[in-house]
């Protein structure tokens, strides 16, 4: 891929990832976040996290579909870090606007409310991945160990989706779409491995 094309694509990716945040900032500046702004912010940051994380999980299966898609790898770190960025905003919304920085209230919530537990676990699982996101960290860990560590992202995504399901009222089906997409992306991995193995060693 030409350098100028890459720069164009990266710019587009940055703008797309910053879009949910800009909408919130614009809404806050113009007092236009709906009747319940706290709920609007919480929902928007949570949804952005899950969507961007899902996009980052689409890269490996897509690359395995065709060798011409190899360049997609250049966007995985960007997406992963943006997912963490929105997850942190989401967590901060909870800490500041719901819990009001009250440590006791937060401890009680994490212990008592399973959707909060699942959400906090998902965020914690992303932490070591962010910490080892630099080229230097990959070199230090070695590719294999780094890859093994980064399989934690699957657990984080699953916790995130569970967090979504546990938070909505019983009977509400809004988390269904992202769940199906994520399930396809996670299942694609073993299926692709199995098919490639079949090709390599014909029975």
């Amino acid at each position: 891929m030409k350098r100028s094309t890459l720069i164009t694509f990266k710019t587009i990716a940055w703008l797309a990832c910053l879009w949910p945040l800009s909408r919130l900032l614009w809404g806050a500046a113009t007092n236009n976040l709906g009747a319940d702004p706290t709920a609007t912010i919480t929902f928007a940051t949570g949804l952005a996290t899950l969507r961007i994380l899902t996009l980052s999980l689409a890269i490996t299966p897509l690359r395995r579909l065709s060798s011409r898609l190899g360049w997609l790898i250049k966007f995985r770190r960007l997406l992963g870090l943006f997912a963490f960025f929105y997850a942190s905003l989401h967590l901060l919304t909870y800490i500041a606007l719901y819990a009001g920085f009250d440590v006791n209230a937060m401890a009680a919530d994490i212990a008592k409310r399973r959707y909060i537990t699942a959400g906090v676990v998902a965020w914690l699982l992303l932490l070591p991945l962010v910490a080892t996101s630099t080229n230097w960290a990959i070199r230090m860990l070695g590719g294999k160990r780094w890859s093994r560590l980064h399989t934690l992202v699957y657990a984080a995504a699953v916790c995130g989706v569970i967090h979504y399901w546990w938070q909505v009222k019983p009977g509400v089906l809004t988390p269904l779409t992202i769940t199906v997409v994520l399930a396809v992306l996670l299942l694609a991995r073993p299926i692709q491995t199995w098919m490639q193995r079949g090709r390599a060693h014909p029975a």
Partner: protein
Amino acid sequence: MLIATPPEIPSSEITPQSQYLNRRRFLRAALATSTAAGATVLGADRIAEILSPSVTVLAGTKLETVKSPLTTSGEQLTSYNDITSYNNFYEFGVDKDQPAKNAGLLPIRPWTVRVEGKVKQPRTFDIDDLLKLRPLEDRVYRHRCVEAWSMVIPWVGYSLSEFIRQCDPLPSAKYVQFLSYYDKRVEKWGEQTNISWPYSEGLRMDEAMNPLTLLTFGLYGEVLPNQNGAPLRIVVPWKYGFKSAKSIVAVRFLERQPPTTWNDQGPNEYGFYSNVNPNVDHPRWSQKIERRIGQPFYAQRRTTLMFNGYGDQVASLYNGMDLRRNF
């Protein structure tokens, strides 16, 4: 800047309200006939929408009101726009903005309220008589939803006790049940839930007779918009919002506690009493804090008060009761 002034409509061209309402009634009747005749190429709903778009009949009509000593002071009122566009009224959709879009179909005239059960004589009240029964009072109340958001709403109505006296309940009546309007042809959104309609709510007799419990006809000095429970609802300010049944068609006096909709849906989440109580959490969230609607995000958070701040008037109703068990 040029600002076009809307042309004045001469009063001679304004359709009298009674005729306007008659037209709707005629259309509804005509529609029923044509439906029966099988002339439903487009589908009855579509025809109804074309002939008679979902306008909110009567909403916005000014009401004559008097001051009330039972009003809540010292609170900033939630805007009319937020009160009328952020609603829970599942018969018209589960999203907050759906009732405002869909409740125009609610046929609020003619409207009667059946009174039945443990009364000297069952009878039916017409909405227009109920409006004249007592002077309508302006009453500002805090409104706390079980979902942990809150508003401050200037309701219009009179104490439910005034109406109950007209009903002549027997001494054996210990509870009052309120049934909301339900017609699945109008409220088709209700069919998309697993809730069994009509919506039912109930109060203990002494709760219903407390002067704070308001039989409500309006807000902001005007007739209730449909999404807020037109043409009449109750408002019980010390209880979570869902206890305040909307668009009431029947009032039943009973010896025993009636089944109530949300209590039936989730008995561990929604108690029969459902008094606002910061010490009893909802299983999925704390009730200690509420978010005031219409405030900027950094100023929404508020401490929830026991009985929503109406303890002086109502705490004695629950003397000797364990409010953790009877939540």
